[in-house]
């Protein structure tokens, strides 16, 4: 046929998808979108808390990708196609952002390896893992290396007023002041160095995660059910607790601290290990909130979210079964 202008052809499925605005709805694009959504929070983290988080991110993402590539090679599956879907890199990134910035790199790599190989590849790879891989890695690190895993920099999340922390190193950890109290003091003129106080830094970081999360909601990458359910339930729990005890964490600290908002928008929204239906996701969010609160309030772990998520991951088959439509 003649060359020159392309010949008209009938509508095909790909063109239809593009015309209907669905062409960006691919799994690799979803993973990439979540990575982009992590940027605001990451920037705030690096600037306000500790720049070493960038190194951790690079190391963890690389380690996760290499682990996945190696696993796919051993399983005799397509390496490039799998690695390019971005899910391993995302797992590494989420883990890197959940651990203390000063964590020894070998521990971070170990955690990433466990997350990728033991929590994901062993079950069959993408889509098959019953547990959130980043949280599995985090939980293993928490239990195996309690000292380094709870050693946060002095501008640390006071919520992690850790019982494990070495008392000679950080004075802040011993006070019973809330970060907001500390902030008020400094604002009245007791400035002690940092213009931005620890508590505020962590709250700002929380807002960074919130910004990313809201963007993901707007892009319809995640649904609102799990995050909203979790945050509301957590608010209710902490609000309730505040009525009874003055030492309970203030609401703003409880909600705006890095771990909570990060978990709400980036951890519990993992589609593979979460519930599949909207109602199921609400239940999932409520469950995570309740267990997190219980661990924070009554347990000895400062970081309740990882365990809460893992426990709820175990409950997901039951939740799905309860909410499956019966045609």
């Amino acid at each position, binding site marked *: 046929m003649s060359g020159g202008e392309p010949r008209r052809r*009938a509508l095909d499925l790909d063109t239809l998808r593009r015309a209907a605005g669905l062409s960006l709805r691919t799994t690799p694009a*979803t993973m990439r979108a979540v990575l982009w959504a992590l940027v605001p929070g990451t920037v705030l983290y690096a600037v306000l808390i500790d720049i070493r988080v960038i190194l951790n991110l690079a190391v963890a993402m690389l380690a996760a990708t290499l682990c996945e590539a190696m696993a796919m090679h051993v399983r005799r599956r397509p390496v490039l196609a799998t690695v390019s879907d971005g899910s391993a890199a995302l797992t590494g990134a989420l883990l890197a952002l959940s651990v203390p910035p000063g964590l020894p790199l070998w521990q971070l790599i170990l955690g990433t390896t466990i997350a990728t190989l033991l929590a994901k590849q062993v079950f069959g790879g993408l889509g098959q893992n019953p547990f959130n891989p980043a949280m599995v890695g985090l939980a293993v690190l928490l239990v195996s290396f309690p000292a380094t895993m709870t050693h946060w920099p002095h501008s640390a999340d006071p919520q992690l007023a850790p019982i494990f922390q070495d008392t000679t190193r950080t004075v802040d950890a011993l006070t019973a002041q809330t970060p907001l109290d500390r902030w008020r003091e400094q604002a009245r003129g007791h400035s002690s160095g940092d213009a931005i106080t620890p508590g505020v830094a962590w709250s700002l970081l929380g807002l960074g995660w919130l910004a990313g999360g809201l963007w993901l909601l707007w892009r319809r990458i995640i649904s609102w059910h799990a995050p909203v359910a979790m945050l509301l339930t957590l608010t209710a729990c902490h609000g309730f607790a505040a009525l009874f005890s003055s030492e309970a964490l203030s609401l703003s600290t409880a909600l705006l601290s890095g771990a909570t908002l990060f978990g709400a928008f980036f951890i519990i929204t993992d589609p593979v290990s979460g519930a599949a239906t909207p109602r199921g996701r609400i239940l999932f969010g409520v469950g995570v909130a309740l267990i997190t609160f219980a661990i924070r309030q009554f347990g000895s772990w400062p970081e309740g979210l990882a365990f809460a998520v893992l426990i709820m991951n175990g409950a997901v088959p039951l939740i799905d079964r309860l909410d499956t439509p019966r045609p």
Partner: protein
Amino acid sequence: MSANTTAPRITGGIELPRYKPGLDAPPVEITRPDTLIFPLAGYRGEPLPARVHVGQAVRQGQLLADGIVATNSGHVQDLREHPFAHPSGLSVPSVFLQCDSTDAIDSISARPLSLEAIRNAGIMGHGGAGFSTFNKLAAVGEQCHYLLINAAECEPGIACDEALLLTDIDGVLCGVSALMDLLRPSETVLVIEQDKLKARKHLEHALHISDLPRAVSILDIQARYPSGAERVLVDLVLRERAHGVLARHERPTHRGIVCLNLATVHAIGALANGQMANQRLVTVDGRRPCHARVTLGTPIRHVLQQTGNLPDEGDYLRIGGPLSGYEHADMAAPVSVHVNALSVAAQSEPRPPLPCIRCGDCVPVCPVGLYPQQLHSLAQARDDEGLSRQGLDHCIACGCCDLVCPSAIPLTASFREAQRQRTISQAQDQASAAAAALHARHNARKQRDANRHITGDKAPGNSAVASALARARRKRTPKA
């Protein structure tokens, strides 16, 4: 007289951009080829026994097999395997009709139209599925509550019903009138999507000046795919009229509802006027989009050639729309009544499927309320029982879940395949159950005979058998 009502949209489904090629010009009349081909295949693609033999002269309208009529007179040149328009791409025994120009017609139907006439004319659904219209009408029972005329035509790329409304609305109303006489429905509703503006104007005008026995109301529904699927449409109307939707096992006819495609109604109208319903409009999309008026039995290649749409290197032929249609390799297959669109599209690399990430996007778009994510994992696990429990049988293969899946998993294809596997294994189960029962009876009889042999009892005697044997011996005719 017509009344306007607005309806909410269907549940599930997905809104797609309007794409209706070939409506700008009048339909192209495709000349009848010398040889017409009629695949003797039933509703599910099963081969049908032929009612004619090679060399036989046939008249226009004569039944070649159950539900398949000759659309022209002539004689049967050959009867052999030939490809037909079916996703399997297989061949089926087909009648090759050498046409003559005598146009001898088998029978002329007179008004009022009877069910028998519809059956003898072999009228089948024109919407794409090809269900026997006679069977549908006969199943409605005593009281027909609703006669629904399906002019929704929801799929982008198919516009033959819209073209029919623009070019031959009188023929359609003829059919409506005949059906109203035949079924005496309590209410007649013509359902059309809102975006068919010009066609709707034609319709309104025609209804206004027509003399139909009773009012036909027009129901405008939101343009959403797949609102034209029969069950989905019937549920929409039921919901809109504040009745309960169809239960899973129910057919529309169980509730006294007859839902017919617009082109089918047009064919019935032609029959009522004493004409042969031997042509249909086909949307042809490709280099030169148009609508073709095709005599049934015309090879697809002939249609593409005359409309200037023969495929090039790297193109493929698609029968049906981009979502519900299928690729077909052989253009020698003839246009049968369920071929509503022919497209020549470019071959493209399909996206390689990734694993299911359980995002749940497929669930809200299913128009039948199924759970494609779970069906997929059950299909992979080959869990037949789980599949039937989750309602695989109700999947209408609309393709909505395919469209939204971020992992590009060919869900619809895997459901079709799973349905096919279930049909096969159900048939096998039935066959082996029958064989097992036969074997058990055989063993029991053997045991009884053995016991009698031991105890020395006389056989109780199957009296019918014994008396028949006695008669044969006496060579007498049996008593009544």
